[in-house]
């Protein structure tokens, strides 16, 4: 799978250039050729490092003083930590952090309407008005904590120790921050896309798209005027806002991007589709294979992608633009490792053998287990990778248990690979413990022979069957109201879930149509415990990119209709 980095670089470069162009146009006087002796693009890069990472152009840490006597440096916190990447500010712990984007700083701040974001943030603004900042007064605020009227800023805002050039670079960065709308937005519309591939069936495709389309049409587009006036009334009290003050919320348009052929060609296709019609963000989407190529495209082009339905997401601690439901099957591997180590407390010298097929799912499960096992400082694992051509049967199990007598076996295998498994229980080399994935076993979990159930554990990344009634009723009622038949509850309920988040996020975004703000708002969403059919709890936070943090470990009772018995908490540490 190769990726056309050159093309992507051109794309990003294009964005940067148009950004500069916009900035220049907004200045009327034209962009300065240099900032602190540096070319403008270089100053922007350095300014971004200051704002997001707290790193000075010299490479050192930014330093500042908070609360009058507390020294803080760039490793502890950054501008973006409080003001967010978009510069739209935040509200947390009763402290309102006002916006620091250029458009907000270089305009007067007089009323609650001028604070972007959720109602709560606005309602916290009760300071006297301030006029627009200038470059000089902004420098004063950064260095001495004084606003353009001479009032002192809250002590929680650091007083920064910066040289004149460093100040100029940061001021230059702030001035353009969220300066123009992100791509995919015009005066009337905001455009989104959902991605499917030719490996997705027509039924799965409509299960994913119909709830999303119904939401955008009935709960957003057809209610824009109402939403706008509500927004007005909610924020400023009755009589506080004039009808004409309602924000011009944009109509949402959803494109469907269908990718064809091998995954190695997706980046080209994505680029073509994006060039033809840029979108603000990707919503949902699904494919049976790895999501990696789409993930990479979004990362390179800074396009938010929220909640694709995939078992094989890209697992990264640092990537920013894609928010997943979970780490998929990788998370099941992690869970098994944590359970065996910290809950089951497998003896340190116990031999552990992973058995998996050489396919995407098998490898992702095994990777999740092995990464975590290593992180926990456990003894090395044995791995048995089973090629596609090799058949698994009685003989396979005999040889495996003879080679690893009484070991703990982690069997990332599907039902068709479990024949002859039952005899493991009888042999002298009987394994001490077996581990399986419910995703691979399938919903029924039936294929596990009775004889091994006593010492078998299963990862179960969903709500337990008895836990889902309330969430199910919310979902089915909504689908009934929208007159959408439920053909694939797993896929449709995922779309339903994120329309709940989207509804709040689109409204809170107001008319500040910036991709970073969109993500900032999603990151500050409260924990969701009812609106997902699949997950008991989904939680968020800046940089948290896998909303489901848990996975149960269960066992099965014997008999033809086995019951699930929960063996662990949702989250295992």
């Amino acid at each position, binding site marked *: 799978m190769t990726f056309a980095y050159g093309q992507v670089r051109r794309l990003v470069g294009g964005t940067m250039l148009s950004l500069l162009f916009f900035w220049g146009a907004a200045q009327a006087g034209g962009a300065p050729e240099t900032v602190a002796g540096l070319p403008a693009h270089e100053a922007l890069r350095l300014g971004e490092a200051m704002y997001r990472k707290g790193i000075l152009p010299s490479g050192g840490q930014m330093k500042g003083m*908070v*609360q*009058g*006597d*507390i*020294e*803080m440096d760039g*490793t*502890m*916190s950054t501008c973006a*930590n*409080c003001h*967010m990447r978009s510069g739209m500010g*935040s*509200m*947390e*712990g*009763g*402290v309102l*952090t006002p916006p620091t984007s250029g458009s907000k700083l270089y305009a007067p701040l007089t009323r609650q309407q001028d604070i972007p974001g959720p109602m709560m943030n606005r309602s916290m603004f009760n300071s006297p008005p301030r006029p627009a900042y200038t470059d000089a007064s902004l420098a004063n605020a950064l260095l001495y904590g004084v606003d353009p009227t001479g009032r002192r800023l809250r*002590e*929680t805002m650091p007083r920064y120790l910066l040289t004149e050039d460093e100040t100029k670079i940061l001021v230059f960065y702030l001035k353009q921050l969220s300066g123009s709308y992100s791509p995919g937005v015009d005066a009337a519309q905001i455009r989104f896309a959902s991605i499917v591939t030719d490996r997705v069936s027509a039924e799965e495709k409509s299960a994913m798209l119909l709830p999303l389309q119904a939401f955008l049409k009935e709960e957003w587009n057809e209610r824009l005027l109402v939403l706008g006036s509500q927004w007005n009334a909610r924020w400023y009290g009755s009589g506080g806002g004039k009808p004409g003050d309602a924000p011009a919320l944009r109509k949402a348009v959803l494109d469907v991007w269908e990718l064809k052929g091998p995954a190695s060609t997706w980046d080209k296709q994505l680029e073509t589709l994006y060039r033809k019609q840029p979108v603000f963000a990707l919503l949902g989407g699904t494919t049976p294979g790895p999501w990696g190529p789409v993930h990479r495209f979004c990362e390179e082009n800074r396009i938010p992608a929220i909640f694709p339905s995939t078992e094989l997401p890209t697992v990264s601690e640092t990537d920013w633009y894609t928010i997943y439901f979970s780490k998929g099957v990788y998370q099941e591997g992690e869970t098994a490792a944590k359970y065996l180590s*910290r809950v089951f407390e497998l003896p340190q010298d116990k031999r552990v053998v992973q058995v998996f097929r050489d396919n995407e799912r098998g490898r992702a499960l095994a990777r999740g287990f092995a990464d975590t096992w290593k*992180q*926990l400082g456990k003894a090395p694992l044995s791995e048995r990778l089973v090629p596609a051509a090799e058949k698994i049967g009685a003989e396979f199990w005999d040889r495996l248990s003879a080679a690893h007598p009484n070991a703990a076996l982690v069997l990332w295998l599907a039902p068709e690979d479990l024949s002859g498994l039952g005899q493991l229980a009888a042999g002298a080399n009987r394994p001490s413990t077996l581990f399986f994935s419910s995703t691979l076993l399938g919903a029924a979990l039936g294929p596990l022979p009775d004889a091994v159930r006593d010492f078998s554990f299963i990862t179960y990344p969903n709500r337990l069957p008895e836990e889902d009634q309330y969430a199910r009723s919310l979902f089915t009622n909504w689908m009934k109201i929208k007159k959408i038949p439920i053909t694939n509850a797993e896929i449709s309920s995922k779309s339903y879930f994120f329309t709940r988040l989207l509804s709040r996020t689109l409204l809170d975004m107001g008319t500040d149509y910036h991709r970073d703000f969109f993500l900032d708002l999603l990151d*500050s969403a*409260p*924990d969701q415990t009812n609106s997902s059919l699949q997950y008991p*709890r989904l*939680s968020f*936070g*800046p*940089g*948290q990119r896998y909303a489901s*943090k*848990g996975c149960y470990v269960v066992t099965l009772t014997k008999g033809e209709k086995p019951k699930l018995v929960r063996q662990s*908490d*949702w*989250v295992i*540490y």
Partner: protein
Amino acid sequence: MKSLITLLCLLLCSAGAYARGPQAPAAPKPSQSTDKGGFVLEMTLNGDGLKNGVNVLDLSLRDRSGKPVEGAEITVTPWMPVMGHGVWEKPVVTERGGGNYQVGNVVIIMGGLWELRIGVAKGKLQERASFPFYVAEKEEAKKEAVEKPREGLQRQTAYYNVPNVTLLNQDGKKVNLRALIDSGKPVIVNFIFSTCTTICPVMSASFSNLRGELGAGADRVQLISISIDPENDRPERMKQYLSRFNSGPGWEFLTGSRDDIGRVLKAFNAFVVDKMSHEPLYLFRAPNSEEWIRIKGLVRKSDLMNELQRMEKK
């Protein structure tokens, strides 16, 4: 003894001597039988009787024959009979063994005649007693003014029943919270999470700066940060978070199951429905003290140093 105090109190009240009433008589160990005669209660008050503010008292409970009674359920209600009201704050009763019970968080909100109404339930017996007290108007107002915190901070005394939970620290080690708090050092507790936007970095920087100020002896104070986002805050992540703040021995970042963390937050009156609406809180406790100081608001390093000195003097 009881009737004497009551008489004296009534006299004082009727004389209209609220404001500058003479010092209430010290009531070192009032003792009385419950209404049906099943128990005898003896009360020990720290200092000079009941005072306007937060009080701690000890109760010793015996049966008719003088044997200590353990395992009784005791409720204490401060009541102002003349005004016909009680207080919002609920006293906290902790059994100490040998028929001894400690009652914390007895909050008296004004001067005048008060009763401490006590209910005792043990087995089938449910009995009551009432201890009257005359509470002087605040005379320590000046002293309090000196201790008054900076503007923007709320500082108050509080009593907490620390739950007996085992949490996980940044190294993945199990830590019993009660044992950690009772480790013999002054303790400062706060509540944070590793992806918090505004207030946690400032709170953690204040801990970091306090440690910097104390230098090599930084671990003479036990800092405890308790996660309010326990699902995301795993040991690996907490360790990385602490490393940003020059942490070291003496600073524990604790996480645990949502239930356990919920119990801890509720016990410290710090529970919030969602992590985004949490408040900046610092809780201070001197070694071997029952009393906590609770500060709401973002503190300075100097505030932490002052509290530490106060705790070390105790």
